[in-house]
């Protein structure tokens, strides 16, 4: 028993007054001096900031890494603790999504590959030195060169210098570089654009300038091209030009819920609706940009056919049409499931036509800022490549940061085909299905450990710079490739950093280089791109336009996952810990179906279903969900579930529909953590309608006791439910910022998740689905405070409902008494084993077992602001303090500030007629004001 326990024990038996919570622990702590001071001055205890790029998904947002210098027993190093958007970055404007926030845990993931691994004869991997690894690669290259075999280089989307380097590399060793394979390759859109406008590319959608947005299947907030950018633009459009937004989809998606109005259309019948809109634009007296020669070919559909095909009601169709016609700057975006159907190409083309007709091309659909997908291939190209692999003429196979085996459908037989290659080298950061079949695994550094650059779209280049030294024995892809080339005597440059820098200088000159490293990105106004309308193609297309057949039910729709993208983010524990905002299921996968479908097949929640189609089959528990069509089943991509649909040669996309599946109840009952106790508001007016505050809410509560005053500050928050898209980025941010522990599935099944802030979905018949952000309301008359026997929680002079963790004895009375149930109890001690302990935010204490914890409006940030303000002898400015949640919110739905300051934005918003507080009748006087959600038809 060590000293501390011993003292505990003493305390336990004697209750001696000697013991104090403030006891100094006896662990022999060290301070380690530098031998030589680092060139970039590090002030101990002060955070450092690096501007770099998020590489978790292809959107490539600019991120600002917050790092601290930390001392662990004998080492002293700089470790990132938090990622935030670069404030003025043209993609994400200082915000970040859930995956971006969580991507820091990839750096500290203890399951990363720590050394180069080579497969022995018996199929087990043995770790080797980098030197040996390079030797093997060289010798293999030699061998296969001698035997005249084809070598291939597969990678996921790469941009900028890395892409150039790979070119040189492949050219040097005559390796065939294949198109980059992404499951989300948007080739339907690209093909359509080249077909109509002669540009094989994805345009940049200027949602922020639109006043009406019609999205069809495009999950613009989950995975579609650049979700964060879309979210930011959405909120700007909402604020500036009061954007109206309809969404048409066959299934149920986060994006759909966030739209003003969501229309459920029969799967794969978008084409009818599109044609109808197109014709009605043509019919309109005001000139459409579509020449008559094309215009006359547009078939006109009678409404009743339309109704019967699409399953939309007449008034719905008219609503959409009128909204489109009556708006000045309408924009239609098709993508996601709508382009991953049999008629995906047509859908894309028709939407192109509509955009052209309404003159949105060039302004709202901006080709001059086209997304950089030049190297990204289609699924077809991948399929063809698979055909070409065979035993005796395929030698080396390089797989860079890609996991085709688990991401591409089984029926393509990816695994079997790839195995045929003689020697497979995988450059990967974590183990996955593909690394299993590889012969050599080279561990990749996280982008926070490596140099590089990225080129997300035309006219924008991002810097990738390390914020810490490598934690494990890893190297960055650039360095690996350069090293290999060096060993073959081809010296491109001494390392990847200098390669990147020289590239930059070549393009933009020397002088702006430091600026580039400082800012983390460089943007230039791209030369405008004129696109011309290809009449012949349009006519051709309309002449032999085929109408799709209705899909065979029961139908399975594979929907993109907000949390796991195409499955690549599945190995991040944190993302599993945070529940999916629609179903509130955290761990494991599930299949959603509507109530009536469930009744028909007498399926009840948590029943395990076996879904089979030909050879393919999955077993998933059922989740009954409102807002889903009849006989439609939805699974989210991630983990065991991948895109298993057929591929479409015309659109070059994977199909996200699996028709005519058969469902079997296995009889098993899988326990899945559904964190929500009830999906209904139970008539409690949590998100009230009408939204303006009722009289009863307005009047101040009477009390026997006198008011208590706040001197200079009273921190408060407003949450605009109209802008909140339930993307859960705030939740992830909170986890990282406040050292909130990850407790795992078993605790979740008991309902013991630790999140301080949560997204509560409420499904209501008449108002559709709405999200509520629930965190500590920092009540002025907090019910939790007076019940604490030891003053562990109390009301601080600045209006914060303080929680002093090391004073808490754990009666849990406060949690019982909290009407919002936002307090979390540490049921067990949580280990922060290496390297996770490096991630801990030093500004926030790590809570012991048996202690209550909760949101404190990121008190550490407030304290910091105070510190700075004191130095400058002023008071804290409005917007100077930003809690982690508010900081990362892509739609800026959360506003934080001092409500005593009459000029603060918080004060103004709290006085808006949409503002209300939850359970106001309880008289808890919360400091969080919600701005009610507007209805679509307002």
């Amino acid at each position, binding site marked *: 028993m060590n000293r501390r326990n011993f003292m505990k*024990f003493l*305390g*336990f038996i004697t*209750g001696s*007054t*000697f013991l*104090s*919570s*403030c006891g100094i622990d006896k662990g022999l702590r060290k301070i380690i001096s530098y031998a030589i001071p680092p060139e970039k001055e590090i002030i101990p205890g002060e955070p450092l900031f690096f501007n770099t790029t998020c590489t978790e998904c292809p959107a490539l947002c600019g991120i600002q890494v917050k790092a601290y210098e930390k001392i662990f027993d004998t080492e002293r190093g700089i470790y990132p603790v938090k990622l935030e958007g670069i404030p003025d970055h043209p993609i994400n404007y200082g915000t970040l999504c859930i995956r971006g926030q969580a991507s820091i845990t990839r750096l500290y993931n203890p399951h990363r590959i720590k050394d180069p691994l080579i497969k022995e004869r018996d199929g087990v991997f043995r770790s080797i030195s980098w030197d040996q690894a390079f030797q093997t690669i060289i010798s293999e290259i030699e061998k296969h060169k001698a035997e005249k075999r084809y070598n291939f280089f597969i990678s996921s989307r790469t941009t900028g210098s890395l892409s150039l380097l790979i070119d040189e590399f492949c050219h040097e060793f005559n390796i065939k570089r294949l198109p980059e394979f992404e499951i989300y390759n948007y080739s339907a859109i690209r093909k359509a654009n080249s077909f109509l406008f002669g540009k094989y590319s994805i345009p940049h959608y200027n949602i922020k300038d639109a006043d009406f947005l019609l999205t069809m299947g495009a999950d613009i907030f989950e995975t579609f091209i650049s979700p964060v950018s879309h979210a930011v633009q959405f909120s700007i459009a909402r604020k500036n030009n009061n954007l109206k937004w309809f969404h048409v989809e066959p299934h149920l998606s986060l994006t759909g819920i966030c739209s003003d109005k969501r229309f459920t259309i029969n799967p794969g019948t978008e084409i009818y609706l599109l044609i109808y809109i197109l014709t009605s634009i043509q019919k309109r007296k005001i000139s459409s940009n579509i020449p008559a020669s094309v215009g006359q070919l547009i078939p006109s559909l009678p409404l009743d056919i339309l109704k019967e095909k699409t399953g939309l009601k007449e008034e719905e169709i008219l609503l959409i049409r009128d909204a489109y016609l009556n708006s000045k700057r309408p924009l239609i975006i098709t993508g996601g499931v709508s382009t991953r159907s049999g008629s995906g190409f047509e859908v894309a083309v028709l939407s192109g036509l509509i955009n052209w007709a309404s003159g949105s091309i060039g302004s709202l659909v901006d080709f001059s800022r086209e997304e950089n997908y030049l190297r990204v291939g289609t699924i077809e190209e991948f399929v063809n490549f698979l055909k070409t692999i065979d035993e005796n003429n395929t030698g080396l196979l390089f797989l860079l940061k890609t996991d085709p085996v688990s991401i591409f459908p089984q029926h393509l037989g990816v695994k079997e085909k790839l195995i045929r290659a003689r020697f497979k080298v995988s450059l990967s950061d974590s183990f996955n299905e593909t690394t299993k079949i590889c012969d050599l695994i080279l561990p990749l550094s996280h982008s926070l450990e490596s140099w590089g650059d990225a080129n997300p779209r035309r006219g924008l280049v991002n810097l990738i710079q390390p914020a810490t030294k490598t934690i494990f024995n890893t190297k960055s892809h650039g360095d690996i490739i350069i090293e290999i080339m060096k060993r073959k005597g081809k010296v491109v440059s001494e390392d990847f950093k200098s390669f990147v820098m020289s590239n930059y200088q070549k393009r933009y000159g020397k002088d702006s280089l430091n600026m580039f490293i400082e800012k983390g990105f460089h943007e230039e106004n791209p030369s405008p791109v004129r696109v011309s309308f290809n009449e012949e193609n349009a006519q051709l297309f309309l002449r032999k336009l085929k109408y799709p057949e209705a899909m065979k039910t029961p139908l399975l729709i594979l929907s993109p996952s907000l949390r796991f993208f195409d499955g690549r983010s599945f190995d991040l524990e944190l993302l599993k810990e945070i529940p999916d905002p629609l179903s*509130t299921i955290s761990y494991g996968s599930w299949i959603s179906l509507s109530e009536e479908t469930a009744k028909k097949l007498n399926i009840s929640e948590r029943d395990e279903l076996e879904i089979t189609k030909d050879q393919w089959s999955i077993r998933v528990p059922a989740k009954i969900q409102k807002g889903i069509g009849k006989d439609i089943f939805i699974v989210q991509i991630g983990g065991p579930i991948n895109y298993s649909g057929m591929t479409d040669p015309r659109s070059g996309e994977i199909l996200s529909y699996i028709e005519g599946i058969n469902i079997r109840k296995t009889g098993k009952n899988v326990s899945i953590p559904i*964190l*929500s*106790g*009830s999906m209904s*508001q*139970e*008539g*409690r007016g949590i998100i009230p309608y009408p939204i303006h505050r009722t009289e009863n809410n307005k009047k101040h509560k009477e009390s026997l006791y006198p008011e208590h005053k706040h001197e200079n500050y009273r921190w408060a928050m407003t949450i605009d439910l109209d802008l909140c898209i339930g993307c859960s980025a705030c939740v992830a941010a909170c986890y990282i910022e406040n050292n909130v522990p990850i407790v795992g599935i078993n*605790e979740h099944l*008991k*309902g*013991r*998740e630790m999140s301080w802030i949560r997204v*509560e979905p*409420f499904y209501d018949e008449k108002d559709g689905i709405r999200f*509520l952000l*629930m965190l500590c309301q920092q009540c002025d008359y907090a*019910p939790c405070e*007076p*019940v*604490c*026997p*030891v*003053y562990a929680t109390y009301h601080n002079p600045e209006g914060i409902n303080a929680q002093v963790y090391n*004073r*808490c*004895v*754990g*009666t*849990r*009375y406060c*949690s*019982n*008494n909290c*009407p*919002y*149930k936002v307090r*979390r*109890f*540490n*049921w*067990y*001690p949580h280990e922060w084993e290496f390297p996770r302990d490096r991630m801990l935010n030093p500004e926030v204490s790590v809570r*012991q*077992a*048996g*202690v*209550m914890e909760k949101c404190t409006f990121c008190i550490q940030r407030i304290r910091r602001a105070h510190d700075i303000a004191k130095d400058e002898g002023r008071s804290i400015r409005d917007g100077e303090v930003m809690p982690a949640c508010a900081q990362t919110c892509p739609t800026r739905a959360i506003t934080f500030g001092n409500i005593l300051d009459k000029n603060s934005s918080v004060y103004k918003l709290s006085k808006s007629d949409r503002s209300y507080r939850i*359970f106001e009748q*309880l008289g808890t006087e919360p400091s969080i004001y919600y701005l009610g959600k507007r209805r679509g038809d307002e």
Partner: protein
Amino acid sequence: MNKAISKAIEFRYRIEKDVLAAMKKPHIQYWIFLFISVILFVTGMSLWYYQIKTGMGVSGKTHPVGWYMYITNFVFWVGIAHSGTLISAVLFLFRAGFRSSFNRSAEAMTVFAIMTAGLFPIIHLGRPWLFYWLLPYPNERLLWVNFKSPLIWDVFAVGTYFTVSLIFFYVGMIPDLAIARRYATGWKRRLYSFLSLGWQGTPDQWRHYNRLYMFLASFATPLVVSVHSVVSWDFAMSIIPGWHTTIFAPYFVAGAIFSGTAMVITLVVPMRKFFSLEKYITLDHFDSIAKILLLTSLIVSYSYIVEFSMAFYGGNIFEMEVFRYRAFGDFWIFFAIMIICNSIIPLFLFIRKLRRNIKFLFISSLFVNVGMWMERFVIIVTSLSRDFDPYAWGLPSFSTVAIGITLGSFGMFFMLFLIFVKVLPILSITELKEVHE
């Protein structure tokens, strides 16, 4: 000398012999019972140790059900304690004759019940080794406890209650100990003469003694009311629907006396049988104590009705949901048991025959004990699992540790009581003498 006098004199000697006979060498059943309860107690304690080592998570509590079996036990045992004080103090003030045959065991029960109850607030702490932070002692932190917190009220109420009951128990025993010392030999004799403080029974001693006894009785009477009111305010002071109600104090006090009386019967019936005290604890006594049982049962049932009607008449959606859930939700079975045991079975006590039927009394007292435990459980758990925010609704999880510790508490209580019956006079001899003069 006439017959009556000689009878009285003869009675004095007989009662001493009979009562002190209980302290003679115990026979086998006693050892069996003692063994069982000791085993239970030890398992309970080791489970507690396990809980401290692993973490509070093993106790089956969840978010939002932060209070579970431990607090249930706390309230239950405090409740048990109450009738002890009632019988010894309140009935003393009312000069109820039949009290003398129960009060000693009732007071003993009180003391042991509080000891058991007092453990649970500590057991249910997340960091029990810091329990002393709940005591207002001058400390280096210059920080005191929060006197606005009902839990601190508990600390004071229960602390006071324990001290006072202990004094009461002891003072009541002094003259009897003096008698015991006369019969005992060897170390036992030394012990008793030490405990009896050299009591001689001079007129002065008796004078002050009676005064003191009266004072203690009149202190204990309001105390007994206050203590369980305070315990009820742990709930009533919160804002949880189903807890936040003004009727809790009287409701809980009645409930406490109800359960306590039941426990007295549970304990006295076998005691009476084993030590053949039929002469001193007569059917009339049982009859009258059964009446108390019946009365309190009626009060409790009335409170149930009031609770529900207030919820539904008040039209507060939170309250309505909680009470709907309480009756028909996941815990309906507990609720049903509670109603049957507390409101229905005691109704049979309207029948005089059954009141005087020891077996029936014993059985029904057991039922009431169960019922009252269920009541506390239902109140705590259902209210917590269905409060304001529907998203946060949830259930507690099954926990063997919690159940083990609960059983352990019963073990502890019975162990203490069994030891008591062997070492201390189980009836107040002196009083019985006085009564029989």
